[in-house]
């Protein structure tokens, strides 16, 4: 569903549904900490980041056409139907009443934290470096590059422009003189 939509916002809605269902799969695998992180980080942060960029891009004439379709119910009908399927599954499991305990072998967050800060401490620091580099890179790439030159270069460019303007002024004069 995500890869066949034409409008980015539709694709992002389906992507949010996909992330929510993957989080439910993690919960059923016995990894509640990772499931919470999946929903918070993916369905929270990354979706918001994509939506910000889609809003900032402001895709021109496409948006004018999309505005007409924007209020139609078919835009949000299918994603909300998929979310309702998830909700119906949860309600069915809550109120079905069969107390058959699923054989879930849970890996609790305590073991994850001990392993994370025990044997993987170098990797944690490396991932911190990576996030720092990501922040700095995004801030550097994303800022608008203004043509701000050094003042020496600005003076040089001004003189060059003046000189080229003088040449362009003189050359037609010679041509007109020759023609005359």
């Amino acid at each position, binding site marked *: 569903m*995500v890869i066949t939509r034409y409008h980015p916002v539709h694709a992002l809605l389906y992507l949010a549904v996909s992330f929510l269902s993957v989080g439910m799969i993690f919960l059923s695998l016995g990894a509640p900490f990772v499931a919470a*992180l999946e929903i918070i980080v993916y369905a929270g942060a*990354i979706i918001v980041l994509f939506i910000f960029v889609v809003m900032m891009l402001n895709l021109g004439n496409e948006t004018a056409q999309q505005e007409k379709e924007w209020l139609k119910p078919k835009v949000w009908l299918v994603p909300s139907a998929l979310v309702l399927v998830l909700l119906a599954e949860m309600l069915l499991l809550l109120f079905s009443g069969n107390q058959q305990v699923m054989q879930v072998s849970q*890996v609790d967050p305590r073991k994850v934290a001990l392993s994370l800060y025990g044997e993987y401490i170098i990797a944690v620091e490396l991932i911190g470096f*990576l996030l720092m580099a990501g922040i700095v890179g995004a801030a550097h790439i994303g800022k608008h590059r203004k043509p701000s030159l050094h003042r020496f270069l600005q003076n040089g460019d001004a003189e060059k422009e003046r000189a080229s303007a003088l040449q362009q002024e003189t050359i037609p004069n010679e041509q007109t003189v020759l023609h005359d």
Partner: protein
Amino acid sequence: MTDSVNMVLMVATVLFALGLVGVLTRKNVVFMLISVEIMLNAAGMAFVAAGSKWQQPDGQVMFLFILAMAAAEVSVGLALVLQIYHQHKTMDVEDLKELKD
């Protein structure tokens, strides 16, 4: 137990294939980034399934690393998308052949 792990691995494979098809077929840069996110998510799901099978926390640790890497990647990628759109006024990768300014 192993049955559910096999099912989750199959779901992860299908998600990865969907993301790969998305990367290969779409020409909009934003959609390609979304597909890459799907592929990373599928890889993390395979890690968590494997860690749940062998009762080790290493799978979840690897998923945390994948998640942080995906966050960094998507921030830099979206900044690049903004810059490309400001310079070329297009999102089509067919139009972005030039590496120079």
